[in-house]
């Protein structure tokens, strides 16, 4: 088994696939690692083995992913599927686990392309069975052709509308769409409209989704300001507030969504610097023109850096690959610059709509920072909002300290579904900026692995578990 590569890439979504295909065109060894059994990431999940025959259901944007998958397949890059990366050290030692066996490889250049995950949606009852993220519902649709009739869709953002639109195209009845997009956002987004108009096609697409859903007779309820999911052992009811009035819908399935955020755990655990984005309200990795982080030889590309969407991620992946190839000595700087130029141009075109989208779909504060005492913030350790506020009142001033106060963030998800909430909550309670509060200190392994796997690392020839 090969234990060293010139370039290793983590994540086979648009950024990772594009980076691997570009890198493999040159005289370097390339390894692509991904947790799924097929390339595509979340956005193009199962695109190469899609069983839904009516292509209008998932739509043309989804099938664009096929080109990236074919390019990757013919590129000669080594692609290990079903492989969980549990560590990238600053020395670029990569810990991998597959089928219950762990091993290490090293690489001269690493590109982290771990993409996005959905933003936490901490409302009462969001942990009840029957409540799923809209992204989760879309995973079931794309990977298994499964859909749930008569579900309530609640929240805000392009993905929520897209999944609802895909359901409608598939003839799956939707109970109601509860739109929590604050009305004031339109005003905030207006200054970004001129630049967004250069991507008028995308804007029209969004309007078309909403218009089609409304025309299909699906109740599209705007101005929803608050949300509660009720039930004992599973969700049975949604309550929502518009103005001062509460309304209710009896339902057994709710799909929640309020945007996506970078999946930062691997990059943060490698020690890469991140900054708080006041616009996207999440952590952005600090990267240079060639996607390299503040740690030499570790680049981060795509939605794992900042949310830009699948097409932007693709271009960023290519730019990151050219940068890595140059640092490997496989490309002169002049070659690198000219090869990257068209993708840089395409990237800036792709990002023109983003400020408008960021402004119009920014989730309101009370849906990011729960007001209720009992609302669960940390799903794993079942830590309610009140315990976090009490801990801060007792003198806890940071997310890491909060772990000792409450175990918040110490469960198997390793803060992925509470980290942002916790940082924002502490910042609000202490009256300081989120950047000052910081994020959880993340450490490898960033995904659980068996103790036996870790212990057996040395038994395999050529694999040494680094010092860390």
């Amino acid at each position, binding site marked *: 088994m090969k234990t060293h590569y010139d370039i290793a890439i983590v994540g086979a979504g648009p950024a990772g696939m594009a980076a691997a295909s570009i890198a493999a065109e040159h005289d370097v060894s390339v390894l692509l690692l991904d947790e799924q059994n097929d390339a595509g990431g*979340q956005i193009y999940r199962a695109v190469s083995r899609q069983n839904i025959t009516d292509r209008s259901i998932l739509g043309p944007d989804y099938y664009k992913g096929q080109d990236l998958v074919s390019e990757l397949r013919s590129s000669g890059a080594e692609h290990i599927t079903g492989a969980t990366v549990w560590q990238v050290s600053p020395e670029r030692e990569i810990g991998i686990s597959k089928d219950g066996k762990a091993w290490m490889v090293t690489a001269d250049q690493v590109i982290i392309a771990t993409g996005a995950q959905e933003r936490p949606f901490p409302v009462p009852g969001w942990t009840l*069975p*029957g409540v799923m993220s809209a992204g989760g519902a879309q995973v079931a649709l794309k990977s298994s052709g499964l*859909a749930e009739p008569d579900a309530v869709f609640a929240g805000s953002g392009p993905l929520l509308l897209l999944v609802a639109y895909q359901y409608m195209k598939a003839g799956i009845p939707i109970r109601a769409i509860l739109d929590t997009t604050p009305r004031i956002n339109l005003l905030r987004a207006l200054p970004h409209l001129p630049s967004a108009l250069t991507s008028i096609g995308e804007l029209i697409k969004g309007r078309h989704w909403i218009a089609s859903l409304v025309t299909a007779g699906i109740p599209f309820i705007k101005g929803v300001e608050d949300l509660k999911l009720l039930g004992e052992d*599973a969700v049975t009811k949604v309550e929502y507030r518009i103005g001062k009035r509460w309304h209710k819908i009896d339902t057994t399935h709710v799909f929640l969504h309020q945007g996506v955020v970078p999946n930062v755990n691997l990059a943060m655990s490698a020690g890469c610097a991140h900054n708080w984005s006041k616009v996207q309200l999440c952590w952005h990795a600090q990267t240079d023109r060639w996607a390299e982080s503040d740690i030499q030889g570790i680049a981060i590309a795509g939605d794992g850096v900042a949310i830009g969407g699948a097409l932007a991620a693709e271009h960023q992946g290519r730019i990151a690959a050219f940068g890595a190839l140059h640092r490997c000595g496989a490309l002169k700087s002049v070659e690198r610059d000219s090869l990257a130029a068209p993708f840089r141009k395409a990237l800036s075109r792709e990002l023109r709509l983003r400020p408008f989208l960021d402004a119009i779909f920014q989730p309101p504060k009370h849906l990011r920072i729960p007001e209720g005492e009992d609302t669960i913030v940390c799903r794993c350790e*079942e830590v309610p909002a009140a315990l976090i506020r009490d801990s801060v009142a007792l003198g806890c001033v940071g997310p890491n300290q909060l772990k000792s106060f409450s175990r918040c963030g110490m469960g198997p998800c390793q803060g992925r579904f509470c980290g942002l909430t916790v940082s924002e909550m502490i910042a609000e309670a202490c009256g300081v900026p989120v950047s000052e509060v910081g994020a959880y200190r993340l450490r490898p392994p960033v995904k659980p692995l068996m103790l036996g796997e870790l212990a057996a690392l040395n038994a395999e020839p050529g694999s040494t578990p680094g010092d860390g």
Partner: protein
Amino acid sequence: MRRIDQDNQPQVTIEFEGKLLAARRGDSVASALLEADQWTFRTTPVNGEARGPFCMMGVCFDCLVEIDGVANCQACMMEVRDGMSIKRQQGAGDIRLPLPNGDKKGDAP
């Protein structure tokens, strides 16, 4: 959940809480259970509350089940296999370590 695509994959049989279910090869355990309208996958270790799959992409760890005696398996990340036996995970789950006998498969006893 309801299947809307063309079912051209072979079926496998899995067992969930002692009941036999038909599942489609290539599906995740979570998908297979959702197709059988099972949305409760586990109870939590702290308050014993019911939970089910939330993110479906390996991030939230709310779909943990016991598969063939091994606890803490992410149902959304594992593919169904013929004869697989799945149980709801109760609380923290029952952890049994593989024997350190050099058996490369590392199967749980």
